[in-house]
């Protein structure tokens, strides 16, 4: 068995780093991109016609800025006013009503529009943003070879030493004991047994500890649903589909009505080639047809003609029954990125279990993750304002940050009850 730990660790750290960088950008840009992704991306693409029209150039098509704002705020009102351009557009898109956004401010809309106009379609490179997450180098092999060479040198030197000793003994006339070949040398045998015992024991314990863990689990799902296409290429926010992660302990696989929000209009796949893990190609359009057959939707008629039946997805991330895990706690209160535990999901055509979901893995993260303590400017989670002594220590510089462990995040009954 290969020791994966350093690899995992590196992978983990680099992904953490890359996601932090990516997220960092997000956070700075309470700007067009974030707003576009959370509000518009499920139906619009800047350069492609999806459920709604491609948005680039919209400011030149509709020059009246106020009208455009009104349209985004409440399109029904604009339609009712009889505006010809928008009514034509409405008919062109099969009279699919656009969501209203009364809560968006004018500034936010401008930011979105700016983002749309400046948008450049990403060059279809093979890697995508995740390439940096590839393990840059693997030193294990190097160390292994080095150890082996050193061991051989040691063996040779030992042999040389014993030969020289024998020679000098011969010279001085000291009667030498019967030479023992090294494979019958008790010290060597003992050493090898010890090595085998330690190595075998290590492997056995590792194997036993790993029982029931399914890191790398990547089953074939009833529909070839690609997170890479949805979360990666089309940049749909994770929470758009896994809404419940915000509220509940379960992130939940979205119900089919959520899929149909977009797929009522998107009925064919025109993107880059979809490949299975074994290299075979997948027909994306065919997979969308599968969705229609589950929901009982007739795309030609644009109607639901059959009763729907649920998709039986195969559950990948399983925790034992005696563990309480809440997505809301981590995603909303803890502001942990999905990728921290699920890996570079935006690059996975087929989802693969990224972490081993072991207790040690959880605890290690709890030991290092910093709690979102409120600071003097009012940022941070005010729940933690009750930790008076920690705040004092933070101010006086005795502590530089508070980790989850400090507030009891590694205690038994935080997860087991």
């Amino acid at each position, binding site marked *: 068995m290969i020791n994966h730990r350093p690899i995992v660790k590196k992978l983990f750290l680099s992904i953490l780093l890359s996601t932090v960088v990516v997220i960092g950008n997000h956070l700075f840009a309470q700007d067009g991109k974030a707003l576009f992704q959370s509000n518009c991306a499920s139906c619009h693409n800047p350069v492609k016609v999806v459920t709604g029209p491609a948005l680039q150039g919209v400011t030149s098509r509709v020059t009246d800025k106020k009208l455009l704002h009104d349209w985004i705020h409440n399109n029904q009102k604009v339609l009712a006013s009889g505006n010809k351009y928008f009514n034509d557009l409405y008919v062109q898109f099969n009279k699919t009503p656009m969501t209203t956004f009364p809560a968006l401010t004018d500034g936010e809309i401008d930011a979105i529009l700016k983002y749309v106009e400046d948008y450049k379609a990403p060059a279809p490179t093979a890697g995508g943003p995740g390439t940096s997450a590839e393990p840059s180098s693997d030193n294990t092999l190097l160390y292994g070879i080095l150890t082996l060479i050193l061991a051989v040198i040691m063996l040779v030197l030992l042999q040389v030493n014993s030969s020289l000793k024998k020679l000098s003994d011969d010279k001085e006339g000291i009667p030498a004991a019967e030479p023992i070949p090294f494979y019958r040398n008790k010290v060597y045998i003992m050493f090898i047994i010890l090595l085998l015992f330690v190595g075998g024991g290590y492997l056995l314990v590792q*194997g036993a500890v790993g029982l029931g863990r399914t890191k790398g689990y990547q089953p074939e799902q009833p529909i070839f649903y690609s997170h890479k296409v949805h979360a990666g290429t089309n940049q749909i926010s994770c929470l758009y589909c896994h809404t419940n992660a915000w509220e*509940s302990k379960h992130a939940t696989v979205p119900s089919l009505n959520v899929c149909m929000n977009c797929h009522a209009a998107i009925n064919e796949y025109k993107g880059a080639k979809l490949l299975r893990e074994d290299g075979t190609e997948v027909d994306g359009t065919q997979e969308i047809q599968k969705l229609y057959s*589950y929901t009982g939707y007739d795309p030609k008629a644009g109607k639901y003609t059959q009763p729907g039946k649920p998709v039986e997805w195969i559950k990948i991330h399983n925790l034992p029954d005696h563990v309480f895990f809440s997505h809301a706690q981590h995603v909303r209160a803890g502001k942990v990125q999905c990728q921290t535990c699920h890996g570079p999901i935006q690059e996975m055509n087929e989802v693969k279990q990224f972490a081993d979901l072991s207790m040690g893995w959880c605890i290690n993260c709890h030991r290092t993750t910093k709690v979102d303590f409120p600071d003097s400017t009012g940022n941070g*989670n005010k729940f933690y304002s*009750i930790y008076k*002594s920690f705040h004092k220590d933070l101010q006086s510089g005795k502590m530089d940050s508070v980790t989850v462990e400090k507030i009891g995040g590694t205690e038994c009954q935080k997860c087991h009850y």
Partner: protein
Amino acid sequence: MSDKKYWQSFGEHTNSEAFQKASEDEFSEDLPLEGLTDGKGLLDAKTPRRDFLKYLGFSTAAATLAASCEIPIKKVIPYVNKPENMIPGVADYYATTYISGGDAVSIVAKVRDGRPIKIEGNELSSITGGGTSARVQASVLDLYDMARLHYPVQIVDGKPQEVSTFEAFDKLIGEALPKLGGAPIVLLTGTINSPSTKKIISDFVAKNPGARHIQYDADSYSGILLANADSYGKPAIPSYQFDKAKVIVSLGADFLGTWLSPVEFTRAYAKGRKPDAKNPVMSKHYQFESLLSMTGANADERFTHRPSETGAIALALLAELGGNVTAPALNDKLKASVRKAAKDLSENKGNALVVCGSNNPAIQTVVNAINEAIDANGNTINWATTVLYRQGIDKEMAGLVADMNDGKVGALLIYGVNPAYDYFDAAKFKSGLKKVKTSVSFNERLDETTELCNYAIPAPHFLERWGDAELKTDHFSLLQPTISPIFKTRPFEDSLLKWSGDTTDFEANFKKYWVAKLGSVDEYEKALQKGVVEPASPAVGKAPYSNAKLADAVTATVATGSKKGALEGVLYQKVATGIGAQANNPWLLELPDPVTKATWDNYAVVSPKYFKDNFHIDLADRRQADKYEVHPEKQVVKITVGGKELSLPVVVVPGTHNDVIGIAVGYGRESAKPENTPDFIGRAAYGAGRNAFPLAVFNGTTIEWSIPEVVVTQTNEIYQVAQTQTHGSYEGRTEAVKETTLGDFRKNPDEILEDRKKELSHFGGTEDYAAQGTLYPQIYDKPGIKWGMSVDMNSCVGCGACVVACHAENNVSVVGKSEVLRYHDMHWLRIDRYFSTPEKNMDNPDDVQVVFQPMLCQHCDNAPCENVCPVAATNHSSEGLNQMAYNRCIGTRYCANNCPFKVRRFNWADYTGADSFPDNQDQTTVGKLDPVVFQMNDDLTRMVLNPDVTVRSRGVMEKCSFCVQRLQEGKLKAKKESRPLKDMQDVRTACQQACPTDAIVFGNANDSKSLISTTRADHNDRLFYALEELHIMPNVNYLAKIRNTDRILAEAGKEEGEAAEPAEKHS
């Protein structure tokens, strides 16, 4: 402060040999290992050491193989179209109403992923204010009872045959009803307090000429209804306002436990009983009764009398209060007590209340006169708002039974009542039922009555249906379904509508009724959301009183005392099981009775003196006491009342009148063919106790539960009664309970504090105690939250709602009678009942005083259990919780041994079916578990389990967690909203929420503004920690009990000699 000696069992009282022996061993038996305990030694055992090693090796290898080869594929199946506002994993709460007969309590049902799992009180109700009872808490389990009837049936020769559809059933009834030959249809129901149902019933009655509706209550209040018709001109029951009463006199009414509306009364009663140093006042409660009821156990002054003397006491009271009546002779002691009570009553005119539990209209008429004399009408008795919990008139029922026997009833439609079981003359009812042409039952199961009917169409559980209840005049509580019906059931109202040709269903009717009543759909929806419709301020007023019938009543009352035997009997209801409507509810059956602490059975209650005189065992004698106690075998007696016989084991309860025997009703449910009972009524109910209803006495007008003459014959049989509290010794430590009298408390409010200081003086006094009293150098601080609980022993009445709430919230398992007998009960929270008597001999029942103390894990900051665990499975959190990690526990039970409070529970078997090894439930070493365990393990019944709490398996220790799942949820809620915890809103424990008296307060003790902090500060003079001097630093504090009496003082001195006796020392 007194030096009273408190005891939980007679063995503890006398420190008998068996008691000493029992408390030597924490667990009365060894671990169930084959070969180790049978005395043959390891080598000769069935599984010798080598075999053991072979098995061990094999099973390890097998487990490794099994675990590594294949991991089962789990599916995740989302909705096709998810209902809006439904989030898997987040509970929804629906306001609805608990209904059982006439009892109705506004509740909120917690629904997780489509299934109700917990009941809470509805705080918007002005009547119960969020309080619940054990029965309300347990009712959610009834929903998942597999013994409920699954579909409509036609019963042919006692065998139910499924009727495939409701239409087919309607057709059968449609054919049967016109063939009655002119004989009328009679609807027999329990008290109906639903206005919409009443309307449907009256429409049905109007459409069927000659039809009538009769209400029947097994626990009848006809006496009060008839007396009020005489005195106040209307057969109704007024609102009793215990919160306004400074003096309460109860003549045998168990108003805190089972009388009329206990949740409401308990809540109001407790309001008047929270004295502190600033305001040292509380109500004074006199109780006259024959048995020690839970209410009597809470009384300040308690006097016992024969049941036949109730009338005489009422008359004597009236005479003392200036009524122009002459009371029959009473003994001097009772005379003096009546005088004392009367003095307090007359000094508090307008602030006093007298209630009476008798069902004799004459006695109740006299009580009405008493209440007039103390000016209660319009003050503590509100006649403008009457209650509608009970409306049945016994005489109407008797008339119906006579009509049935005369063949004058064509069709009988039975809904929600079970007269074949609980009518005093059930035999006559049964013979009458045979003569009824068409009988239809709407009961939820094939109970004693239903199996004798021709047809049965089960009504849904109250959590599955729409409906409403008018608890009091203009006080409504609404029902809405929290789950779609589990079985093929249909509301009773739907059937009536169908059979009277109406095409609308009840749901539409209900909606129409309420939209019309409230004015708009909007208002209707708002009302559903709130669950209650109440006037802004309830009407308060008096009723015109007439004493025209008083003279007759006095004569009749005098006559009630004329007939009496050497031994009299009293039937009573247990707080948990009541009249037996929820008789198949394992939580209720396993809830120990507040006073006897017995589970799973009813029995004959007698006094220690009676036992000494007739059974020749003196329980005050340390050698003789062991013949009765320690071992659960009890002698069985044959009880004969007017030709009816009943065999029951004898249980001795101090405080029982010496000439009285008490028997609880509500037990002994049995089908016509007893072997059908597990299927028809339920596995838990099967074999639990005997039916005492046939012993009730019909006086020509009403059914009375006091029996003038009982003959008891001893038998050689023995029967095991499973009592808790006869094990788990405090090793002679008495500092767990503190009490004082109101007089002493007024004189010296620091009494308790001084007592604590004295106890802790060796360890640096109360101030430096935390640091000084210990060798451990470090005190761990709790930087954020420090959870704390306060339990007010003055408010706790011992009702057990918290115990059942804890069961429901924390998946606490039911173990069955045979396991309780082995002291394997699993209650995380128990209510300790302490007796104390001034004399050692317990001959005078009036001398017995009782203290209730809810006992749960005290979450000691310096916990003795934590440092003995070899695997650190139990340890302390930074929030002050004593944590228990089940998966780490290896079952050494050291922690339970070292716990001074005996609150840790060990899973001797796999009670919840959590293990994948079926052998852990039934095997020779564990013993055969009772059928009830398997009833609870049914796939459907397991739906009641709380998904947020681990189900424990065999071999691990468990205990109160302070509802840690709620704490985590509350904290998360606050974190999501980026704000500090809201006290009393985000986090409440299940026991706290269930408590009708708010005796339990819980919260963050680090927050100086939280209720727990203010409670501790405001009641510092009553505050103490149980066994504080052990330096265990509990996070649960108690507030000392205060009695509004002077008796502790007077008797403490007398007792000193005995208290000093070092009998209880055991080390």
